[in-house]
C-alpha cells in the first residue's frame, strides 16, 4: 500500500504528459458552432456594402425560398479561396446574399472583380454586430436560411470543392 502511494506522483505525471502529448499530436477541432442553427435569423438591417445593389435585412429571407448567407470580407484570404465554389453554387441556381465584415465599397468591388460576383445583396457589417448576433466567429462562414427565415445549416471556414454537394444538399433540405 505504502509503495503504491510512492508511485502515485509519477503515475499522475505520466497521465498528464500523455494528455499533453495527445493534444499536441491531434489538437482537435477548435471551431465554434453557432447555437443559432434551428432558430430564426436575428433582426437586422444592414446598409448596402456596394452602391450597385441593395443592403441586407433579415426580412429579405422569409420569402419562401432558401438562400445562402455568406459572411465574407475582401481582406480575408480564405474568402478568395472559396469564391470559385460560390460562383459554382450560383450557377447551380443557389441564391446567395452576403454580409461584408469591416469592409469598404471600393475593396468589395475590387474583390468581386477579381474573384467573381455571386451575390444578389450585400450588407455592410462595419462593427461585426450582425456577425456576433448570428453566433459566427470568423470569416468566411456560410449559413443556409430556409424560406421562413430559419437558420438551417452553418458551414465554418471556406467552402472547398468537396463541400459543394453538402451545401447543395442543405439547400435542398431547407426547401
Amino acid at each position: 500500500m505504502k509503495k503504491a502511494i510512492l508511485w502515485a506522483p509519477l503515475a499522475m505525471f505520466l497521465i498528464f504528459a500523455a494528455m499533453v502529448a495527445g493534444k499536441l499530436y491531434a489538437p482537435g477541432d477548435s471551431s465554434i458552432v453557432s447555437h443559432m442553427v434551428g432558430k430564426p435569423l436575428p433582426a437586422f438591417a444592414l446598409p448596402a456594402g456596394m452602391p450597385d445593389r441593395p443592403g441586407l435585412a433579415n426580412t429579405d429571407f422569409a420569402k419562401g425560398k432558401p438562400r445562402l448567407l455568406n459572411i465574407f470580407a475582401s481582406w480575408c484570404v480564405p474568402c478568395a479561396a472559396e469564391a470559385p465554389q460560390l460562383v459554382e453554387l450560383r450557377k447551380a441556381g443557389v441564391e446567395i446574399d452576403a454580409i461584408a465584415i469591416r469592409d469598404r465599397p471600393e475593396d468589395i468591388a475590387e474583390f468581386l472583380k477579381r474573384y467573381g460576383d455571386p451575390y444578389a445583396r450585400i450588407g455592410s457589417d462595419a462593427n461585426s454586430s450582425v456577425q456576433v448576433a448570428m453566433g459566427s466567429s470568423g470569416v468566411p462562414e456560410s449559413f443556409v436560411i430556409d424560406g421562413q427565415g430559419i437558420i438551417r445549416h452553418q458551414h465554418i471556414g471556406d467552402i472547398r470543392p468537396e463541400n459543394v454537394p453538402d451545401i447543395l444538399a442543405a439547400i435542398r433540405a431547407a426547401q
Partner: protein
Amino acid sequence: MKRAAILIGLIGWAATAQADSLMPADPMADTQLSDPAKEAQAKALMENLRCVVCQGQSIADSDAELAGDMRAMVRRRIAAGEKPEAIRAWMVARYGDWISFRPPVEPLTWPLWAAPILFLLVGLWLARGRFRRRGR
C-alpha cells in the same frame, strides 16, 4: 521615398499575415464609459467573455478585431441600460456556454466543481499519518 515604400510594404505584409481588416477599431472598443460604475460592470463582463478568435483569452485581453467589436457592443449595451447578466445570456444563446468563463453547474460540470474538494480530502487523508506520528 524608398524607405516609405518599404515601410508601406511591411505594413501590407503585416496586415495579410494577421488577416485583419483595413478599418480602424470601433472607438468604443478601447474607450471607457464616462460613468465609472457602468464601466466597471462592462469591464467585469468583458473579463468573463471568451474571445472567439484567440479562444484562451477574454475579450478584455484579446487584440483580435472581433474581440474589439465585442467590447464595443458590451459597452454600448451597458450604457443603454442593459444588465450584464442579460448580455451574457444573449452571448451564451449564440455561442453556447463556451463563450463564458463561468461554467454552469450541471451534471456534466459537477466533476469540475467537486474536484477541488475531492483533492483537498485526498490530501488531508494522505497527510493524516504524518500529523499522527508527530503528535506522539
